[in-house]
């Protein structure tokens, strides 16, 4: 065997550690799934949060990793939303999971086609082109109201039970569990992608496309690939909304929907996978809470919170968070050693 130097050990250990699940991540997901039992009266808003989280994850992937800024994720959300509604309405695809996957594929195809527009130009042109595409699609949906239902929305969507077993109930329980599972599965896939060599190359594109090309990375092709993938994810989020509400209206294409997504990522942060998830939870919670206090002015307070975040700076918030985290870890190890000291001996017998 070849002798391993300390450096080699260190590199191998680092690479192995890099993609490992941290206890904090596991705790996060345990909590997420525990909400099914913890807050049974809140299924509807939690379901919306899960959908928003998945949608934000799709934007984080292109913005936080590849550095593509977009105001047009709603294009994918909307197209897949209508697609899943139409196939259910006319009974082309009756099984929701299959319809969901197909909707994702349709949205990804749209992502592939539009990627060629988006990859030209600077950030500002990208903002405008992505926004333009989603607004154009919204107008198309309005124009062809014989298919989409126009301003009245798509009526008469009948969503069959998931896998033929689980009916979408009135309380939204099954719908919520369905959304959570889809969110989790998509997250697992995204997590794999991000820690792969492909994912690492995305981060190099965000950092410096000139150098990325100079070490042999086909920049354009990588951007097209991730934009397509991100479009597919956004589409799955859109299809989830249609399936869980049995309805789809023109506002799936609205500017607000894309803009909210940027707000979610401003709250949650980008480039570490959980930004969209945490941001979506905070955003929805704020919206719900403030709206219950002052139904008319909730948007003012959301804006106020955003201004605060920008003023305080995320770095400082993160510093506080890591201090809290360090404290919890210390507390945890202390408790563990204590329980080991107390409970270890009897168990050992």
């Amino acid at each position, binding site marked *: 065997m070849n002798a391993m*130097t300390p*450096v*080699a050990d*260190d*590199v*191998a250990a*680092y*690479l*192995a550690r*890099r*993609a490992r699940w941290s206890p904090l991540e596991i705790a996060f997901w345990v909590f997420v799934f525990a909400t099914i039992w913890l807050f049974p009266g809140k299924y509807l808003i939690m379901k919306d949060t899960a959908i928003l989280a998945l949608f934000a994850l799709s934007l984080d992937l292109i913005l936080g990793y590849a550095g593509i800024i977009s105001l047009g994720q709603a294009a994918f959300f909307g197209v897949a939303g209508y697609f899943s509604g139409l196939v259910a309405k006319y009974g082309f695809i009756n099984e929701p999971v299959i319809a969901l996957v197909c909707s994702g594929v349709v949205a990804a195809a749209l992502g592939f086609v539009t990627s060629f527009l988006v990859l030209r130009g600077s950030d500002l042109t990208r903002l405008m082109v992505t926004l333009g595409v989603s607004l154009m699609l919204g107008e198309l949906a309005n124009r062809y109201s014989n298919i989409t239902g126009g301003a009245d929305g798509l009526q008469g969507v009948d969503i069959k039970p998931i896998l033929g077993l689980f009916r979408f109930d009135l309380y939204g329980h099954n719908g919520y569990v369905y959304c959570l599972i889809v969110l989790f599965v998509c997250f697992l896939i995204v997590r*794999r*992608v991000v*820690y*792969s*060599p*492909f*994912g*690492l*190359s995305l*981060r*190099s594109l*965000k*950092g*410096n496309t*000139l*150098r990325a*090309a*100079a*070490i*042999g*990375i*086909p*920049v354009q092709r*990588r951007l097209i690939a991730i934009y397509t993938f991100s479009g597919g994810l956004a589409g799955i989020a859109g299809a989830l909304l249609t399936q869980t509400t049995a309805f789809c209206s023109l506002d799936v294409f609205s500017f607000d929907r894309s803009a909210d997504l940027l707000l979610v990522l401003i709250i949650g942060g980008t480039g570490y996978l959980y930004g969209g998830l945490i941001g979506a939870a905070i955003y929805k919670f704020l919206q719900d809470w403030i709206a219950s206090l002052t139904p008319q002015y909730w948007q003012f307070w959301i804006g106020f919170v955003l201004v605060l975040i920008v003023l305080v700076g995320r770095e400082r918030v993160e510093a506080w968070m890591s201090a809290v985290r360090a404290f919890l870890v210390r507390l945890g190890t202390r408790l563990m050693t204590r329980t080991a000291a107390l409970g270890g001996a009897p168990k050992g017998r």
Partner: protein
Amino acid sequence: MPILETVALEKRFGGIVAARDVSLAVEKGARHALIGPNGAGKTTVINLLTGVLRPTSGSIRLAGRDITTLLPHQRVRLGMARTFQINQLFLELSPLETIGLAISERLGLGRDWWRVVGSRPEVTGEIVEVLERFRLADVMHERTAILPYGKQRLLEIALAFACRPQVLLLDEPAAGVPEAERHELLATIGSLPEEVTVLLIEHDMDLVFSFADRISVLVNGGLLLDGAPEEVARDPRVKAVYLGEEIDA
């Protein structure tokens, strides 16, 4: 046969001729330096070689293959890598990740979106080798943005080297490196493996004459002279150029 060869390379920007009739031949394994005063067209030539610019006319051959119309990343895959005069690094990545990225790309793993980076032992081994060769092992976990300038300069070269080029283009590698860190950098450049051909673009004459076994002098976009270091050092025209006088060619 030269490993890198240009034939009558010319580049115009509107009315300005930035490179004219440049026919350069770099032999395999050479330590070849391209020198010239400011504005002589050195950067244009390196941009033409690496594919950042398209020549107006003329052709470029790498290991006998015409690469004139290939894109930058395609040239890298055929074995030509470069460094930049001003660092072009991935500031948010660590040296370990940076080198791991270049190696993964070279091995064609860049399209692999499922396996975790470095899950193959050959990648790990090579990362270690490159990091140690360029004395970056002690800072491999740091963010590149906070590394001392000399280390960033080493990483700049290490990143090109990790592409395992046949020809390595170094664009003013010692530029701006403080005296204290200079020695480490020059020693590392001096100990590059012999089979790697190096084309050095440099201002610093000490470095050029201690390192190169062949020197080409570029003046006003054209090649003035091509020869062994002693020859170039003796040539009155070169002296004239570096003293800032007009040349009578």
